[in-house]
């Protein structure tokens, strides 16, 4: 437990020192999407009887919670191979569970911060959505999935350049195809089946449904929980592999 708090606290202290830069970084992409799709193209695209922003903002929330929670992968990788800070954790009497849980919670915290930034940026656009407990639960579940995956990847993928490839080949395509910018019903059935295998698709469903005041599907939460547990388990086991 002490180890878990130490790992988490370290990440929070670093976040504190980088807070302004981090916040600005979190705001850039969502702001551009909101301006592009809200002002510039807002009248051209409709989502049922509501504006496209009603569809887009929950999608941005899903995307940001994914990218921000996954971004801890780069920080862990840099800390491990460039600053050798990971050795401090390896030499300490803490369990793999404490280490992974601390890092995953740090990823979730970062994701929650990014979501708060999007919701604040969305206010001037006058879009009213529901941000109740189910909405936040879906955000946390999505962040848990990708923060766990991030820790596993930081342990398994050594070169820093390959970390960028992970983002380029896994995270970026998922960000665009996981039900964030368009409804899956618009793509062919075979593509729908493929895209329904992505955790982000289920996160988008759950987040959007709760934000629009609809009933979120239990299956989406179960899939997120299952993927999260699988990646968390992978992260736990990959910490041992990092000893060489």
């Amino acid at each position: 437990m002490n180890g878990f708090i130490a790992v988490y606290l370290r990440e929070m202290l670093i976040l504190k020192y980088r807070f302004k830069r981090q916040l600005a970084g979190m705001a850039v992409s969502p702001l551009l999407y909101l301006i592009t799709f809200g002002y510039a193209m807002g009248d051209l695209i409709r989502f049922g009887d509501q504006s496209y922003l009603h569809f887009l903002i929950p999608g941005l929330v899903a995307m940001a919670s994914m990218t921000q929670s996954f971004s801890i992968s780069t920080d862990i990788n840099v800390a491990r191979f460039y600053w050798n800070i990971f050795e401090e954790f390896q030499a300490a009497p803490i369990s793999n569970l404490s280490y992974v849980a601390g890092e995953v919670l740090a990823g979730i915290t970062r994701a929650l911060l990014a979501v708060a930034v999007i919701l604040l940026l969305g206010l001037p656009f006058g879009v009213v959505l529901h941000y109740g407990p189910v909405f936040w639960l879906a955000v946390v579940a999505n962040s848990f999935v990708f923060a766990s995956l991030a820790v596993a990847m930081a342990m398994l993928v050594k070169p820093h350049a390959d970390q960028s490839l992970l983002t380029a080949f896994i995270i970026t395509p998922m960000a665009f195809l996981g039900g964030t910018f368009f409804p899956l019903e618009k793509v062919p059935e075979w593509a729908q089946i493929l895209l329904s295998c992505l955790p982000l698709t289920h996160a988008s469903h759950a987040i959007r449904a709760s934000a629009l005041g609809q009933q979120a599907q239990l299956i989406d939460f179960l899939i997120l929980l299952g993927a999260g547990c699988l990646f968390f388990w992978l992260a736990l086991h990959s910490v041992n592999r990092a000893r060489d």
Partner: protein
Amino acid sequence: MIKITKLEKSYGKVRAVDGIDLSVTPGELFAFLGPNGAGKTTTIRILTGLTRIGSGQVSIGGHDIETEPLAAKRLCGLVPQNINLDSELSVRENLDIHGRLFGMDAGRRKTKIEDLLAYVELADRTHSLVKQLSGGLKRRLMIARALMHEPRVLFLDEPTVGLDPAIRRRIWSLVKRVQQDGTTIFLTTHYIEEAEFLAGRVSFLDQGRIVATDTPENLMQQLGHWAIDRVNGEGMQTQYFQTREEATQFTTGQDGGFTLRRVHLEDAFLALTGKKVLS
């Protein structure tokens, strides 16, 4: 305090550690001396849990590092070769995180941080960011951090590498002080004078094997006390003598330049392995 039995570690076909047997007693300041690539860092990484054991057994304070890793780690402090402080955090925050990792409560952490920063003469830098410190100050902070949880064994992997001679001396006196306060110290170095000055016992390590273990004095005495270096057509040649008189008598009536000096550990290492530590 440290018991190593038939320790082996390979990376592919390269044997980094090749059958090391060793015991270090409580309170001892023990040094591993050898050239780069001899297996010093791999050994220390295995002892501190950073690298998986290949085969063999290691126990620290009676705890096997494979079956009781957390118990063994609680007894150890590590100052690795590379600076691995959190450069974005302050001096105090680095120590505080370390204390938390070792389960120290808030009161004990606070007291210990104050004591240690005074001990390593960094009290005036408590709130400085680590990235603002010089290399020597960072080394002192790393030693303070490793002592934070009051380890019974302190592992120092090349603690003065890259530091200038004056700062190196300050680190040495700090290390001596830590040992005098009762901590067992396991040191790796490729600096001859560091091993001579600090260590009670030294192991020569070459190609993953221990070639000799003894006190620095005994290792040197096997050759004699005095040495004469002479350059001739075959290169540098060294001869050893028990007394200064014998050595000076040897040079009488001979042509060429001689250098008379005391025997040091490098000579013993060269005699046993056929190579220099800093080759």
